[in-house]
């Protein structure tokens, strides 16, 4: 196992952890079935790309067409990525989250995801269409040498800082009275409304916060990959993240992290391993990977819908049920 391979693994893990933490805020805690999650990651990636790239008229870049091209230094592209995710969440949320029943919301978001991909795929002048963007500058590439192990360590470090930041924010939200209100809305929206909670505002807020985090994850990913195209953000990518959260444990940040390590990262690795070992025809294994992910979702929803690490039961200090406290503490 060489350094590049390990770095690749760690950075993917970081990106997936960030994404699943965001999805946990939206789906696990608030009950918003955001089937277009990956679109927000893509928005962040594209935004980071065009913020860091030179205009497409630049010599080396003239084989592609895209809007923008501002050559802004790190960390502006990453911040811009998060901002793009948040900004995109506003119109989408306003259309989808206000009036529709929650299962309609889910399908509306799924359709949005498919259509957004179609549009970007076909509208070449906007973000270079199906071919996607290439030669996207890496963070700090004009200040440090990007070929070499030390840059990999730097990138891992930057990713880790973002994971820590997102974890911190997510933990504060989930463990606060606000998080409790979100969970109440998830459990019974009408009752929460009758108790003075504004569900549209709550959902919009989580849609925007989640969108920003998703955008950041896209920015991190694109800075490492240096390429980004519609084929990297097809709607099934969202399903992997849902699978991760369902497996790890909805409503539990630790579960989200665990799920991110088990499902997207784990499956990638197993697939890669199987392909390298030349088992079966090469197309079969990725296809079967998807089938396995589907089975994982069904299996967990059937046998253990709460996931490996279920949402913790909140026991308050001084609860008369002391035995329960102990049980939860040791769990």
């Amino acid at each position: 196992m060489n350094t590049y391979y390990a770095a690749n693994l760690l950075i993917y893990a970081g990106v997936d952890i960030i994404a699943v933490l965001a999805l946990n805020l939206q789906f696990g805690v608030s009950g918003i079935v955001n089937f277009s999650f990956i679109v927000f990651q893509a928005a962040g990636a594209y935004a980071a790309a065009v913020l860091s790239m030179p205009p497409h008229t630049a010599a080396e870049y003239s084989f592609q067409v895209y809007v923008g091209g501002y050559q802004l230094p790190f960390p502006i592209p990453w911040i811009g990525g998060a901002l793009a995710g948040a900004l995109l969440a506003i119109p989408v949320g306003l259309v989808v989250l206000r009036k529709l029943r929650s299962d309609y919301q889910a399908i509306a978001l799924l359709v949005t995801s498919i259509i957004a991909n179609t549009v970007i795929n076909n509208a070449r002048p906007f973000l270079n269409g199906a071919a996607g963007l290439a030669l996207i500058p890496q963070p700090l590439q004009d200040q440090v040498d990007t070929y070499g192990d030390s840059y990999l360590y730097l990138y891992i470090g930057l990713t880790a800082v973002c994971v820590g930041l997102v974890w911190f924010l997510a933990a504060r939200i989930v463990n606060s009275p606000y998080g409790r209100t979100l969970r109440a809305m998830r459990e019974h929206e009408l009752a929460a409304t009758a108790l003075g909670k504004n569900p549209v505002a709550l959902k919009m807020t989580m849609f925007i916060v989640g969108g920003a985090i998703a955008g950041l994850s896209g920015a991190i990913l694109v800075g490492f990959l240096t390429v980004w195209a519609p084929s990297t953000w097809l709607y099934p990518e969202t399903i992997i993240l849902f699978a991760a959260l369902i497996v790890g444990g909805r409503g539990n940040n630790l579960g989200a992290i665990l799920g991110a390590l088990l499902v997207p990262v784990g499956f990638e690795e197993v697939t890669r391993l199987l392909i390298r070992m030349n088992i079966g025809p090469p197309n079969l294994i990725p296809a079967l990977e998807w089938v396995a992910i589907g089975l994982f979702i069904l299996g967990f929803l059937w046998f253990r819908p709460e996931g490996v690490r279920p949402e913790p039961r909140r026991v308050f200090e001084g609860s008369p049920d002391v035995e329960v406290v102990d049980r939860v503490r040791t769990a």
Partner: protein
Amino acid sequence: MLVAEDVHRHFEGMHAVDGVSLEVPRGQITGLIGPNGAGKSTFMAVVAGTLPASSGTILFEGEDITRLPTYRRARRGLVRTFQLPSEFARLTVLENLLVAAPQNRGDSLFGALMGKRFWIKDEERLVTEARGLLKRFGMSAKESDYAGLMSGGQKRLIEIMRALMLHPRCLLLDEPMSGVHPRVIEQIQHYLQSLRADGLTILMVEHELHLVEQLCDSVFVMAQGKLIGSGTMASLRRQREIVDAYLVG
């Protein structure tokens, strides 16, 4: 206090509430009775805003609230409970009560991000208050259990306690005591009476007429979407058609 003027609500041709006008007097417990399907719950929902009115006006403390969304009505102190259990199943009993509390600095994105130190005082105060209610309704031992695992009667109590955590000025109770043990009913009665003494206005749907008789200062009767009578329970018993409507319906 609470006035309904010619309130209608239909479901595609089905007139569930068909022109109800009434006034709920301040500081009293008012009953709303009528046969199954009379439109009582629908009326309560329209008043609370969980269902929009097809037409008509609702005034709360002199202000037209017909267009106000439900959550704003609740924040103004007009709070309803539901006939069907509506507990937050995967929140504990205590959390169910805490959610309802309006004054918590941690109950906003900003407050949440500020961290525990920013809101812990509010939280502790509310936990004490909620435990007081739990004790009063005999549910202290259950505070850390998931609300979804409670019995039907216990869920009713959660429903009432949750509404009380909002410190409402007008409480709309939809069959709050169905399926509750007689002794607990007595406790609820006492508590509601003490709340009335503190100035709370209550509108209550109830099928048990003897409870209505004991608790309510005055009563409205609905049948087939219309208001067919009002007065004290004793005066209503003397009115032939009302007795008929109730028995026939």
